């Protein structure tokens, strides 16, 4: 029994608040700040409504550049960036597969989870979707195509019904690895190797253009994030535009992209909630006692069930959000007395949700980025953890950056409010175009406003919840509790 529990603890470490591999030191938001932010979100939403009611003009992205232009862009600087991008991917694969098994001493782990997944995403939000031009998997395809011409000639037309579902499924797998994978360097390396093969296979089957538009998670995500940037790249070169206005240039082109955006929102919310005390207690206090009364199985059986339940909640979360979203879109359609079909309206209001999802992501992870990024200084000198010192920085202790708790709270509240106002503003701007009569547009936005306040308040509420001491809770009466309560 003891050995079994020991094994269990290795598989499911009870260390709370671990994202991928590192920890953050964030305290729950004080209740009064949560109350303030939720009220401010509501009040500012009405300020936006009042603004549109007064000005009666909607902003629009007047001359959006074709997205394909970015990828086709050429130039010596881009060539260097493309080569660096492929080199970074290969380096990440090599270090995670063959380097030290200590995740903190392995270049690839910090580079992938911190520099690429967090840092690069936030850079794209500022400077636009440069990833389309330097996608390392696409670069790998180009390299192979150059060596073996015809390798990536599309063998099948990309089926329209498939939409962005491949990217959505891979996104779910990615978040699962982040939250539950306990990614050892090897585990991450093998996952990335598998992902590389999936991308090469997808590009070989459907051609790189179709695959990297619909199937590659980071391409799809960063294209959405890049729409918020005040910069855009077109055939005419760099163009300045008003921030966030890129989200208005065209509606979402497939329902799967709506699910993708909702998963951006729901997976961050799930990450926030799944380690909090109230959430953990839902299972151990509400579900476990009746289950245990019916199913005669040892306690450890339910620990397994608990994790399956967590995974199920993660994968179902975008569909819960979808039901709520569609209900409010239906209300909007009714209130506006619009003849437009539900599908069109649901896709039209998809991209205005991106700022809410994005700021929520930033509030969750920026402390991790700030805290772990300095570790890159020693890691670049000793990427495999083999005792190398390439640049003379291997022995430099990484600065320990911990953002003070009150700064974290204030920045979380400020970011969430800004994202919320931007989302309400964008949705209203879309409504002015879709519902040409002014009164119709204003009324139509009440359901949308309620939905967005609900998303924002839910996000804030999650930030204010106390964190559970561990994932596995044991009823006081259980005989094994003494083993598990560490």
């Amino acid at each position: 029994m003891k050995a079994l529990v020991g094994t269990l603890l290795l598989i499911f470490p009870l260390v709370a608040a671990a994202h991928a591999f590192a920890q953050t030191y964030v305290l729950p938001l004080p209740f009064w700040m949560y109350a303030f932010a939720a009220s401010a979100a509501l009040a500012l939403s009405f300020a936006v409504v009042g603004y549109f009611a007064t000005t009666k003009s909607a902003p629009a992205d007047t001359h959006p550049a074709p997205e394909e232009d970015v990828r086709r862009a050429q130039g010596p600087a881009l060539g260097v960036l493309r080569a660096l991008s492929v080199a970074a991917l290969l380096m990440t694969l090599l270090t995670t597969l063959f380097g030290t098994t200590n995740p903190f001493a392995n270049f690839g782990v910090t580079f992938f989870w911190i520099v690429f997944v967090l840092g690069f995403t936030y850079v794209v939000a500022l400077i636009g979707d440069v990833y389309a031009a330097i996608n390392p998997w696409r670069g790998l395809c180009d390299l192979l195509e150059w060596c073996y011409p015809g390798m990536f000639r599309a063998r099948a037309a990309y089926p329209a019904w498939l939409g962005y579902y491949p990217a959505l499924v891979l996104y779910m797998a990615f978040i699962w690895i982040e939250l539950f994978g306990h990614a050892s360097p090897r585990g991450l390396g093998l996952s990335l190797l598998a992902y590389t093969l999936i991308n090469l296979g997808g590009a070989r089957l459907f051609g790189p253009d179709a695959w990297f538009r619909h199937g590659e998670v980071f391409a799809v995500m960063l294209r959405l994030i890049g729409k918020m940037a005040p910069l855009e790249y077109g055939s005419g070169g760099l163009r300045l535009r008003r921030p966030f206005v890129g989200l208005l240039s065209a509606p979402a082109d497939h329902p799967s992209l709506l699910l993708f955006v909702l998963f951006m929102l729901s997976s961050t919310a799930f990450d926030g909630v799944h380690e909090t005390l109230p959430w953990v207690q839902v299972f151990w206090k509400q579900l476990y006692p009746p289950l245990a009364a019916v199913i005669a199985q040892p306690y450890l059986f339910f620990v397994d069930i608990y994790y399956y339940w967590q995974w199920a909640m993660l994968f179902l979360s975008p569909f819960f959000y979808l039901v709520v979203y569609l209900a409010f879109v239906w209300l909007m359609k009714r209130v506006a007395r619009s003849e437009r079909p539900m599908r069109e309206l649901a896709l039209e209001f998809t991209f205005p949700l991106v700022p809410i999802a994005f700021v929520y992501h930033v509030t969750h992870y920026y402390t991790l980025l700030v805290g772990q990024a300095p570790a890159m200084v020693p890691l670049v000198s000793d990427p495999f953890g083999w005792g190398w010192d390439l640049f003379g920085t291997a022995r430099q202790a990484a600065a320990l950056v911990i953002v003070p708790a009150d700064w974290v709270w204030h920045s979380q509240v400020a970011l969430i409010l800004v994202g919320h106002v931007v989302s309400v503003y964008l949705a209203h701007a879309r409504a002015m175009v879709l519902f040409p009569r002014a009164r119709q547009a204003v009324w139509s936005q009440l359901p949308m406003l309620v939905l967005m306040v609900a998303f924002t308040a839910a996000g804030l509420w999650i930030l204010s919840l106390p964190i559970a001491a561990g994932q596995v809770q044991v009823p006081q009466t259980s005989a094994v509790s003494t083993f598990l309560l560490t």
Partner: protein
Amino acid sequence: MVLVRIAFVALAVAVAAGLWLVFRPQASAPVASRAVPAAPAAKAFDFVVQDGKRVAGPAVLRVRQGEQVTLRIESNANDELHLHGYDLKVSIKGGEPATLQFAASRSGRFGIELHKRHAELGALEVYPQ
């Protein structure tokens, strides 16, 4: 047009600032949380650990930034106590009490771990002043 825009931005800022003043706790009350009592400038916590699990001592240690904290721990097995974020370590000899003393200079939530067991003993929550 520009004036309308400026007026609405000013209105939004004023509304947000007004709400902030309404919701902000009074300066005399504890700012961070009602859960933290107005406490002396020093706090001590005692843990008893048997076979890597906590049998006495709190799961969450709540202190205020700047306070002196004393952690006393007694374990029946050799181990090492880690306080994450502060990067403090103290080795524990089985059967002998070990003490970790420090000033809670950083605010945040920090894991307290039994290193050899890879088990979380509890968490230190340091609330800002």
